[in-house]
């Protein structure tokens, strides 16, 4: 197991390097100038040039890339141009918001999505299957932005059950933390439930058609054991893969909801960073996200070995 982890971490190094160079090139190749954003919409060319010089943006691109890599090796992700704050510290402040949102949405998604998928597969080609898959399709297709606005108006303004926006840190007030996140987490999980239900249904349909399920039923096992133990366990490989993807999309998919609900998370930070051409910030966040996704994939791979003894990596 330790060898597997070592190999996968080593494999991740070139991935991270490629991600970091791509992040640098993509953001710097965009037209627009961070000095203009910092100096202001109506700053004179002299003022813009002064800002550019102060920030080292007048250096050749390759020199800027070199400086960034040297700093990276030293554990310095650089400082955000617009926040005047280190990228790691900016990420550290906002990560709890994004992770809270992602974790809550996954907590909602897993039981609902898997249950809906199993039920749809078990009652395939009945009205239950049609209903579940229709709802899943709506969940996958409905724009999160639109649902978020409607939810704010209904639950926040009309019913006054939940706050319309904002965030409260868990350590300051757990109850308000939950109240501030429940609506965005529910909306984020709508897409995820739809996706997971469809994936689970597909995996379960394949498993339910296998010989070992027929054998299990033939030897008199209860439906619960035949489906819940034998079929479901064999479908888990695909479901775990789907959950890995969901974890990634939960973090990435929070961008729109953080904007609408005014949550000070990483997604909102990245949007602002891109709009302001905040090179160090966007590069740093992309690098950290890249690393996080590699870790998620590694965790999924490790789960495969636990779930399926046939999987041999060494």
């Amino acid at each position: 197991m330790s060898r597997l982890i070592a190999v996968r971490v080593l494999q991740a190094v070139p991935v991270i390097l490629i991600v970091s160079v791509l992040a640098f090139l993509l953001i710097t190749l965009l037209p627009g100038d961070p000095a203009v954003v910092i100096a202001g919409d109506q700053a004179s060319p002299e003022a813009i040039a002064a800002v550019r010089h102060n920030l080292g943006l007048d250096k050749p691109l390759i020199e800027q890339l070199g400086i960034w890599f040297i700093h990276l090796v030293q554990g310095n992700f650089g400082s955000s141009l617009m926040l005047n704050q280190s990228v790691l510290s900016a990420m550290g402040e906002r990560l709890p918001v994004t992770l809270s949102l992602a974790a809550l949405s996954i907590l909602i998604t897993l039981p609902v999505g898997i249950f809906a998928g199993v039920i749809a597969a078990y009652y395939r080609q009945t009205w239950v299957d049609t209903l579940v898959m229709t709802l899943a399709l709506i969940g996958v297709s409905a724009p999160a932005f639109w649902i978020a606005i409607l939810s704010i108006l209904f639950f926040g303004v009309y019913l006054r059950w939940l706050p319309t926006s904002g965030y409260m840190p868990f350590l300051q007030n757990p109850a308000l933390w939950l109240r501030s996140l429940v609506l965005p987490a529910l909306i984020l999980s709508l897409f995820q439930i739809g996706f997971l239900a469809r994936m689970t249904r597909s995996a379960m349909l394949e498993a339910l058609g296998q010989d070992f399920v027929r054998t299990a039923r033939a030897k008199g096992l209860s439906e619960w054991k035949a489906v819940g133990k034998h079929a479901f366990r064999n479908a888990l490989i695909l479901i775990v893969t789907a959950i890995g993807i969901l974890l990634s999309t939960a973090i990435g998919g929070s961008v729109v909801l953080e904007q609408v609900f005014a949550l000070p998370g990483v997604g909102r930070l990245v949007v602002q960073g891109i709009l302001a051409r905040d090179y160090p910030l966007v590069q740093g966040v992309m690098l950290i996200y890249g690393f996080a996704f590699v870790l998620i994939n590694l965790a999924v791979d490790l789960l495969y070995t636990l779930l399926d003894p046939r999987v041999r990596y060494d």
Partner: protein
Amino acid sequence: MAVLGRRDFTRGALAVAGAVLSRLAPGRALADPKKGGTLAYASVSGPGTLDPHVSSSLVELEVIHNVFEPLVTLDNANATKAMLAASISASPDCKTYTFQLRKGVKFHSGEEMTSADVQASMERYGRVSPNAANLAGVDRYETPDPYTFVVHLKEPNVVLLDVMKAPIFPFMILPASQKDKPARGIDVVGTGPFSLGEWVKDSHLVLNRFDNYTADITSPGRDGYAGRKTAYLDSVRFRFMPEATTRIAALQTDEVQLVSSIPPELRGQIEARPELAIREIFPLGGTYIIVNSQYGLTANRTIRQAIAAAIDIGEITEAVGGVNKPNAWMSYPNTPYYPGEKTPSPWYDQKSPERAKELLTQAGYKNEKLIIETNGNYQWMRTTMLVVAEQLKAVGMNVDVRMVDWTTNASHMQQGSGEWNLSTTLFGPEHILGPQQWRPLIYAFANIKGDDALDAAYKGFFSEPDLDKRRELWVKIQEEVLGGGYFIKIADAGRLWAYAKKLQGQSDYPGILQLWDISLA
């Protein structure tokens, strides 16, 4: 040496002879303001820095103008008025300015402000501010005593105080201990009526009432950014909410009591509720079509004039909506440089397709492509340029509209880069501050090079000591800029804010957010 007291200083500074001018009427007085309470204010985004010497964005200045104070500032009529200075005098040759400081003014740290703090602030400004070029003419500073600060200039400068009153890149006074702090690296300590409390970037920022604030008791009440300021609120919580619908929802549920930037199409949601109201902040700026005078077709003056002739301002403002009023000039009415309604402005709102076609023929136009660049971030800009495109197509021009994001769009305009002929933007305080502030923007945005008439008019302006003659020269400058088709003025524009009616005593001055003299009922 002419002595000017704590009065309207703009005209005094402009006239330099230095007559003491009348005090201007302060903003509306509160019937019965109540002390206490926390105001929650929803704004679009949060500040990146609170260093006043490098700040030009509105979200930063909204905090800065409540925390810091300058020596001179704008009053209710946009004239210059002393704030931390008690009086100001200029030598007859306008090479020496002496500021007598108010005594007993305290920083939030508890220390008294002295001339050493003023000198340190000015020196820091000259080192870190993108606007430092305005201090290039300074020979040396002098502090003969703790309450006297003297600026010695290398050359006469009749508009020094006009420069120092600017609300963007403001000349705020910091403690001397901040002198060597880098740009964006100061401790946020000022002399203003509010001090900085908690600040969680992207989430919220809290300002607390500074109970040791030393108000200017020589003024009867507030007066623009100047005057006697009284802080009634215990604290103000800024909440950063990018989505307009969310901001309005928070106002409807009383989670906030004041909201900036309401889209005109959502105005009805506010006005439908009896406890809420809309405030029109006007004028906030002037909107312009910017013509790139160094790229392709629009390098030709006659083509630029043809474009100006085709424009129908009414169609644009109707499509854009919101608060817009026609004004042909680059100064607001009732500001010192406004030429008056009777001064001819034949270039404005011509709506004459015939004249445009005639000029295009005269210029030898052969269906070459005209590129309009606009952005998806600001709806009013996009709508404006789409209407302009249709108006130009109607006179037979071959128009290509290109969409980019605002950062790219702004970079192209400010640096003359990219491939574009027409774009649009809004200019703000220059309409108040006058021709000296306009100069770098005019040259940069329209990409003007080698216009001898404009160069000569500006040269004359800076060397002319008489205000009336400088006004005439400003008209000449505008005749060249607007008549020559570098800029096409659209209108003076405002913005909509919304508030709960229990928030009382808001100023009628259309400036940056002022939190003093307002209270919660």
